[in-house]
């Protein structure tokens, strides 16, 4: 399976995501520059953390207009797996691929902290290898990660089983403790915590690797058998 990692000029977790899928998961990966109009032959794409175009305006507000995002939109519409981490989640929300908004943390400052997440659904290509209700230790590092949406949207997300992760100790004021969500088609996920920072035993937790393992399993399962075999 081949991962594509999008590189905006202000991405700064691009190398970390690359290292996690390439070194920790053991899969090929390539960087995709923000002005590319095609994603090439990747099986899944990761929008990494960082500050896409500086994000002095609303986080991700400019990134949604970049050429590569049109390619990501098409890829998602065709059923490709899209994972947005932190700034990537913010961009997916701005691009309308996911509902709601990510606003300033309740405490108004950036918070970098290892915390606990509960897996709220395993019915997704991003969590299929995890257990329902499993508690993961994964770090966050964001200033604008408070998930916000109107009541109807929140009810809908819950009714459709689209909340993927919830905080056990809500750090930022996110409504209904939401840390990650899916689109309706379940092939696009955004999450504020950083699974790529919890993918290496040396970093103190490998709980985040489960997200990438799930994606690998989902892609392999979706392929015709002949394609998976060497």
């Amino acid at each position: 399976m081949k991962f594509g990692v999008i590189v905006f000029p202000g991405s700064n977790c691009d190398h970390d995501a690359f290292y996690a899928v390439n070194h920790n998961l053991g899969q090929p990966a390539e960087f995709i520059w923000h002005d590319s109009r095609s994603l090439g032959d990747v099986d899944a794409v990761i929008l990494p953390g960082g500050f896409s175009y500086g994000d002095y305006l609303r986080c991700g507000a400019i990134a949604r207009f970049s050429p590569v995002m049109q390619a990501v939109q098409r890829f998602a519409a065709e059923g490709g797996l899209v994972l947005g981490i932190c700034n990537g989640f913010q961009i997916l929300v701005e691009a309308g691929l996911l509902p709601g908004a990510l606003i300033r943390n309740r405490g108004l400052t950036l918070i970098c902290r290892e915390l606990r997440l509960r897996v709220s659904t395993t019915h997704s290509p991003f969590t299929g290898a995890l257990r329902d209700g499993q508690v993961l230790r994964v770090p966050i590092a964001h200033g604008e990660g408070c998930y916000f949406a109107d009541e109807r949207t929140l009810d809908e997300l819950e009714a459709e089983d689209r909340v993927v992760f919830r905080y056990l100790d809500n750090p930022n004021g996110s409504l209904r403790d939401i840390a990650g969500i899916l689109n309706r088609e379940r092939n696009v996920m955004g999450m504020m915590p950083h699974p790529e920072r919890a993918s290496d035993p040396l970093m103190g937790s490998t709980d985040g690797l489960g997200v990438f393992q799930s994606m690998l399993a989902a892609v392999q399962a979706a392929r015709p058998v002949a394609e998976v075999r060497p």
Partner: protein
Amino acid sequence: MSTIAITPDLIAQHQLTPGEYRKIVDILGREPNYTELGIFSVMWSEHCSYKSSRLHLKKLPTRGKLVVQGPGENAGIIDIGGGYVIAFKIESHNHPSFIEPFQGAATGSGGILRDIFTMGARPIAVLDSLRFGRLDDPKTGARNRRILTGVVAGIAHYGNCFGVPTLGGECIFEPCYDGNPLVNVFALGICRKEDVFYAKAAGVGNPVIYVGARTGRDGIHGASMASAEFTEESKQKRPNVQVGDPFMEKLLLEACIEAMQTGAIVGIQDMGAAGLTCSTCEMGSRGEVGIEIELDKVPQRETGMTPYEIMLSESQERMLLVAASGREQEVYQVFRKWGLEAVEIGKVTGDGRLRVRHHGQVVAEIPNRELADEAPLYDRPHTAPPVAPAAPPAALFAGGEAPVIADALPRLLAAPDICSKRWVWEQYDYQVRTNTLAGPERADAAILRIKETGTAIALSLDGNGRYAHLSPREGAQLAVAECCRNLSTVGAQPVAATNCLNFGNPERPEIMAQLVEAIEGMADACRFFETPITGGNVSLYNETLGEGIYPTPVMGIVGLLKIAAPLAIPFVNAGRSIVLLGGVGTCDDVRFGSTEYAKEIVHQLWGLPPALDMEKEKRVQEAMRQVAAEGLAESAHDLSDGGLAVALAECCFGAGQIGAQVDLDSDLRPEILLFHEAPSRILVSTANPKAVAAIAEQHGVEAVIIGKTFESGLEIRQRGNTLGAWDIAVLRSAYENALMR
């Protein structure tokens, strides 16, 4: 512009003395014009020229077998093996951070990061050493809080967006920093040994290329501002503080590193203090060539800028580079990719002069070497440092009662210097780049793995103004010893150092004496611990309305170690032996006057700093490194601020809140026994105390088994008498919740 008359008033406004002006006239063989006067004033400012300190800085050891580049470049470089080197340095941004805390601290971070990647090294770590006035001061507390909040937000803003982990550092509060906070930022980067770049121009006819942000009117005279005391009018200097753009800096980093790979770049230097002036004349001087530039070609953010303004602007996120003639397009292409401006503004010449044109007319012409390297050098008179009262106050002797001791520990854990700085460091992304093995407050030193080499490095910043105030020489030695001890405690071998010397007005002989003594003390200790100084920074004139700060030499030391799970502070298991390497030590009333106990409980400062025996310190550190290397320690923590009791309590604040019972065999008065700060002591918890003791004996080091770890609670006895017993949750709450209470 040349019509502005050079009067004695104008010369004085530029902080040039009549003698310095005469030297300028000698160099030029004529009177300077206004632009030239401005250029000389920034290059010969204390900040850029080190004119008061240079003579003494020469005493510092700068060579070592791992040192690739010592002082004199943008950063020092050491070899870490495996074909890689690290570049690191510490810089102060004290004055701007007082005037405009957020931007002052942000641009301080930006400046030091540029120093690192100018050398071709990608920044992978930042640490900060911060000093503020007290937050609980009824008069100045609110303002100090605003400065703290602004400085922390500024560092966070810049480092987080740039994408470098900020791994902690130190944060201290004293009334003497009320009107003069200290913001010292340490940065470190990595590159292949053959990819190091130097800030040296070469090749007559090669193009001089300006890259990055446009030049505006911000920061004019920043370097001179940083070389004067503060007065009531200083607030009007807010426009002298630059505004940082970390996203631009990130682009500049990526573009520079990529452009360096093309092989088309000959030399490169960032535009920091003194901007275009400093980068042109220093690159020319190092390469023994001349540089001629046309200011019309300099990208400008504002219209109508004068040559004086363009040459002195300290607009951020700019670089100057010299490319190989004929290969300019390769450089331009990379900068275009990153959406940055890259413009040829001049050429390297063979005449050794900095020649500046504006609309084709020469507006300044100065020999590079004289401007950059022949700044005035002063052997300023130095008498003796100010002396603090030697005698302990009578109140001290009333302090030994058991209830006082029981109460003192939570009070000290909540003291501003000791309490958890979680509120500060949680605002920093300390994990980006996924190399952080030990981040803030986890172990005695920050630890990073190096993916490229499969090894790790450890980093420690330390300085103690109270110690240095009581004895600048011993204070500086103690800072070196503490840094090395922090590194050794996590199992790292200290290898090289950088320093930031924060002092008052060097024109006052007693302040100059502090500087001289501190440098000499530091030189002794760095030589003894084999940690050469590879670069650093001197910040003088840290005074507001005649009030000087404590002399505050800050050390940053780097150590090397193997990749492994970090040896962290907290106890891990109950039922383990607690060994105090180095023993309980000793301290008299005079040496007790510099402790946190004296500060927070007695509310006074007297006497001398703790006594340092460097021989013993080295042996303790060697023993500790061996204990760590043999995997005998489950946890390790050195004794520093607040002494034994505070260190023991900190060891109890792990996830499992494992506690301890200890019994101390000592004649010392209880409050001295528990809270004295004698160095050369490390607490280790171990399942194998005999093996630890055996190693200690090999090194001639005392190792006392003082007690055991327990499921809960901390109890400290002296020869069987309980001095205090505490609930860990209560102590932890005092420690965790004190800072922003």
